[in-house]
């Protein structure tokens, strides 16, 4: 494929103009790739297939039976090949650890509650709920400044 790069000063910032004479699967792949570069993504598996998922759609990352899973906005559960402590370091600001086994995306949280026995329960906008260890509450509060 012949690639030519032209600087067009009249274009808006952050705009890429692709000049093609026909849409092909290769061109579509390139477009997907460029789109993927812009938002933060993670590779996850579902039924032995790899998917590239935007982190903005991930509600939570949690450990179950020594494996790490993510739950997406559309309630899909996918296997992630990274450990929780690795994710903790690399995930964007919106993600925060709430227990030894879970990191959540604060953008999807509806509210926190405490029940009568003193368990912290987190309710999400899509109906998902989980519980938090009290030790991590202080850090959650600090992150929300």
């Amino acid at each position, binding site marked *: 494929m012949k690639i030519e790069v032209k600087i067009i000063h009249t274009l808006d910032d952050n705009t890429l103009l692709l000049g093609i004479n026909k849409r092909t699967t290769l061109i579509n792949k390139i477009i997907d790739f460029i789109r993927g570069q812009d938002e933060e993504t993670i590779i996850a598996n579902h039924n032995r297939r790899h998917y590239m998922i935007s982190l903005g759609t991930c509600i939570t990352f949690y450990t179950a039976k020594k494996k790490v899973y993510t739950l997406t906005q559309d309630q899909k559960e996918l296997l992630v090949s990274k450990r929780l402590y690795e994710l903790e370091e690399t995930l964007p600001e919106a993600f925060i650890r709430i*227990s*030894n086994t879970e990191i959540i995306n*604060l953008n999807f*949280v509806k*509210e*926190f*509650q*405490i*029940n*009568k*026995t*003193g*368990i*912290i329960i987190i309710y999400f906008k899509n109906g998902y709920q989980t*519980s938090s*260890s*009290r*030790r*991590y*509450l*202080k850090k*959650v*509060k600090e992150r*929300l*400044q």
Partner: protein
Amino acid sequence: MKRISIQALIGIILGTFIGLILSLVFSYLNGAKNYYPSSPAWTAQFSGTLSATCISVFIWSLIGIVFSVGALVFTRTDWSIAKMTIVHLTISYFGFLPLAILSGWFPLNIGQIIGFTGTFLVVYAIVFSINMLIAKNEVKSINRKLKNQS
């Protein structure tokens, strides 16, 4: 396991220290000229002060272990506050009561034990309430901040 051992060692040291200070204070308060590791009646059971003190130090160490190892319960912040409080109460009550009786701190009669148990329950009810209050305030302030963000 390593953590429990370290915690137990701290308990032995702290238990012995606190026991020694308290027994010194009480010896003076009783107007005695000699040192008594516990009440004079209890100390009299032994052949001399040396062995009475020896046994006392052993018991103080065990009491120290009960409380220092029991304190590890409060690091289990994934447990509910109720579970944490009840487990801690059980460990310290059944660990401390027999040792306190053994060391002659109070006579073995029903009235004393009921009083002791009552005090224990009241203290733990207060501890539970304070922990609940702290957690509730934390949750409230987090929710306020969440609302401000969206």
